[in-house]
């Protein structure tokens, strides 16, 4: 298939439509606007629905409606907008409605700025809205993955009857790279048998998140939890980059993982056996893979464009058996490869324990 040089945000929309997305409800916010604009341009041509809602609150509830009616539906926003959508996301998860939500992260908290950050990790991965629920969270790092993970997101959303979030940032969204759309569109998705479509077959169906009796709600919440366990078993995705022999393993996702690949190369030139574990799914988190690497690596180095959020999941996985170091920038600053390299070298020469220094320097 020929490749097309295209922005990540636009690749995501095309991937979504090829993956069966037929409705998009959104509200403008920088830096997610290319998504909304591309959806406005392409979806009506593809026989789908695009509507600019009056607010993020309305947009996510339109998503709720379309998902109830059994249509593959998407919305896109950025931090402050996702905060407004969080109530709706909780309802979607509670009512077990599949949908795809894209968060092109920007700097926060509050109004923050429009530059890229990764500080919505907690919000995406740990909940954000109220109640016991999880979103499956995918973290693309290339324009190609913006397309591929959008397609995957719709499959996962349907398979688990759950919202799937694509957590990305301004850089991954604005960057142009060649994308192979392997353009066979998904077959027209079947109307799910639980949907409410205004037809005789679906007349008896009910979409709700109310369970008034404590026992009923407990049963429901446990059913959701079992579903999440199943996703943890089957849907955890990650990429290993030069980890086979690595003593120092970086953990980073999205645009940061791209920069870390450069850093791995720079460190290896200096004789430090570095590698990278890149989570592709942030929930479920590749805990088992980190456990496996704990047996091999002397130290883990988490790098994020935040003051440290994913590092908590890395620490949980490492279970205190290895040091987990952290380097982070925020405010919309993107760490350069050189700056991370310098930081890591200084750490090795300075604060790293004797044992770690020995492992890293005898490489």
């Amino acid at each position, binding site marked *: 298939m*020929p490749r*097309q*040089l295209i922005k990540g945000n636009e690749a995501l929309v*095309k991937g979504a*439509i*090829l993956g069966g997305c*037929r*409705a998009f*409800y959104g509200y403008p916010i920088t830096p997610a606007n290319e998504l909304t604009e591309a959806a406005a341009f*392409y979806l009506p*041509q*593809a*026989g789908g*629905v695009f*509507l600019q*809602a*009056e607010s993020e*609150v*309305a947009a996510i*509830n*339109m998503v*709720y*409606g*379309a*998902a109830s*009616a*059994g*249509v593959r*539906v998407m919305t896109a926003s950025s931090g402050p907008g996702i905060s407004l959508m969080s109530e709706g996301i909780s*309802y979607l998860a509670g009512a077990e409605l599949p949908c795809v939500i894209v968060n092109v992260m920007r700097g926060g908290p509050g109004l923050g*700025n429009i*530059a890229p950050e990764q500080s919505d990790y907690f919000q995406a991965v740990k909940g954000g809205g109220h109640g016991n629920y999880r979103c499956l969270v995918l973290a693309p790092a290339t324009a190609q993955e913006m397309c591929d993970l959008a397609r995957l997101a719709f499959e996962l959303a349907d398979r688990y009857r759950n919202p799937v979030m694509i957590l990305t940032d301004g*850089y991954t969204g*604005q*960057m*142009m790279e*060649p994308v192979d*759309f392997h*353009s066979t569109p998904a*077959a027209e998705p079947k109307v799910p048998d639980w949907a*409410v*479509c*205004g*037809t*005789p077959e679906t*007349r*008896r*169906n*009910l*979409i*709700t998140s*109310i369970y008034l009796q404590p026992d009923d709600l407990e049963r429901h919440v446990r059913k959701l939890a079992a579903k999440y366990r199943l996703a943890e078993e089957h849907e955890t995705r990650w990429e290993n980059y030069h980890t086979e022999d690595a003593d120092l393993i970086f953990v980073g996702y999205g645009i940061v993982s*791209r920069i870390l*690949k*450069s850093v791995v*190369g720079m460190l290896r030139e200096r004789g430090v056996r570095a590698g990278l574990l890149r989570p592709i799914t942030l929930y479920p988190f590749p805990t088992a893979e980190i456990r496996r690497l704990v047996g091999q690596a002397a130290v883990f180095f988490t790098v994020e464009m935040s003051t440290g959020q994913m590092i908590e999941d890395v620490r949980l996985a490492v279970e205190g058996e290895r040091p987990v170091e952290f380097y982070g920038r925020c405010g919309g600053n*993107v760490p*350069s*490869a*050189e700056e991370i390299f310098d930081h890591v070298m200084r750490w090795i020469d300075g604060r790293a324990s004797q044992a770690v220094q020995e492992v890293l320097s005898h490489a």
Partner: protein
Amino acid sequence: MPETIPAHMKPIHAKADCLYDSYFRKEDNQHQTHYCPGCGHGITLKLLAEAIDELGIADRVVVVSPVGCSVFLYYYFDTGNVQVAHGRAPAAATGIKRARPDAIVIAYQGDGDLAAIGSAEILHAANRGEPITCIFVNNAIYGMTGGQMAPTTPLGNRTTTTPFGRTPQNDGYPLHVSEVLAALDGPVYIERVALGNVKQILAARRAIRKALESQMKGLGFSLVEVLSPCPTIWKMDPVEAQRHVREVMTSLYPLGVKCDRTAEREPLPARPPGAPLAELPRLLRIPEQEPAFERRGATGEVDLRIRVAGFGGQGVLLLGQLLAEAGMDYGLEVSWLPSYGPEMRSGTSNCHVRLSSKPIDSPLVSKPDVLIALNEPSLRKFLGAVRPGGTVLYNGSAIPGDARRSDVAMYALPFFEIADREGSAKAGNVVALGALLEALPVVPVEVVERAMARVVKSEKWLELDRRALERGRQALRELKAETVKEPCHA
């Protein structure tokens, strides 16, 4: 209603067909509703159910139920049911209706739900003329949460949150929802009715039916506001509460049709059918054919990091894109990243381009091999980062004396002046690209020209850009020749 009873023998006081015979979704008391005796909700949903039966649309109906005393409509309605968040019924109904235009979507809301927390959603659904039907039950109080003030609560009324009576100074005025919405262009039919006596109830019945009919005809948004007794919270008996509706509520909220455009409004056009799946790639403008170039031979190792910088409007981003497009056509891995974040300020523009024979790790170019500086601030800003042995192309007649490095090749050419002589200064970015191709023949010129034809849509501009590209190459050739005579050009 058992199927065996012939239509002409239907008992008059039986439950409507689209209400369940037994409310199996309820925990207990499955033969009665959860509403208090004398509550207007019971009457309203009965009227709604009868209208659905009469119109024969039960199979198509989706009832959207809210939060509040009316939350449990799905106990009763033998139709599609979607339960939604507080105030969001019009938004969710919009999502359903747009997804399934043949469904008859009915949002059922109370006064807190619709007039307070959901005021934005109802206003905009109405203004869009969303072809849904909204039943707005107004009892001027919050029922389920135990008697707090509603936006519709009359002035002076004591509620648990206006313990000294509602005052305009503190709480504002009662909200006249139907009048507000009727002032918009979107709605096709809005009427306020009441449940104060049999005559009023019959009028309510007609209004609800009419609202549903206008949705069936695809005319647009309709809303029926039902002034409804809440004996429990009003602390009245049912008879007293009905009199209160009749005498007090209707004087604050006048009954009647607030807007009716059903006669003049045309049905909304049907959405065109979806394109066949096979058409999708074409509609999405996904290229079908590989560019007809020979891919680069396996022997060539390329790894070039380029930074293009200048003022906004100089075509910085396009220059980078042309390079990336051509690199891709030539079989290289490429990335293009616009400047993002703090650098977006003060009218500067720059982008990072990488061309590589291997997969590209970081698309960020912090240490470029090539700097194309289209203005002096960019030269000064990025010169220090250029890798030793790298190349700098500067838009100017000479490199400023205090911005020189001896370990990089520096070329100064007035790209925009050259372009101006060719017909338009706008093509200065392409002159710079031509110069780059001459300094570092990373991608063959034919490949760049072909990529240009894809990116530059207008034939006129394309012609100019082709000349500009050639002029850029030529200018750099001449400059190089001069540099041989005078080695320390930079």
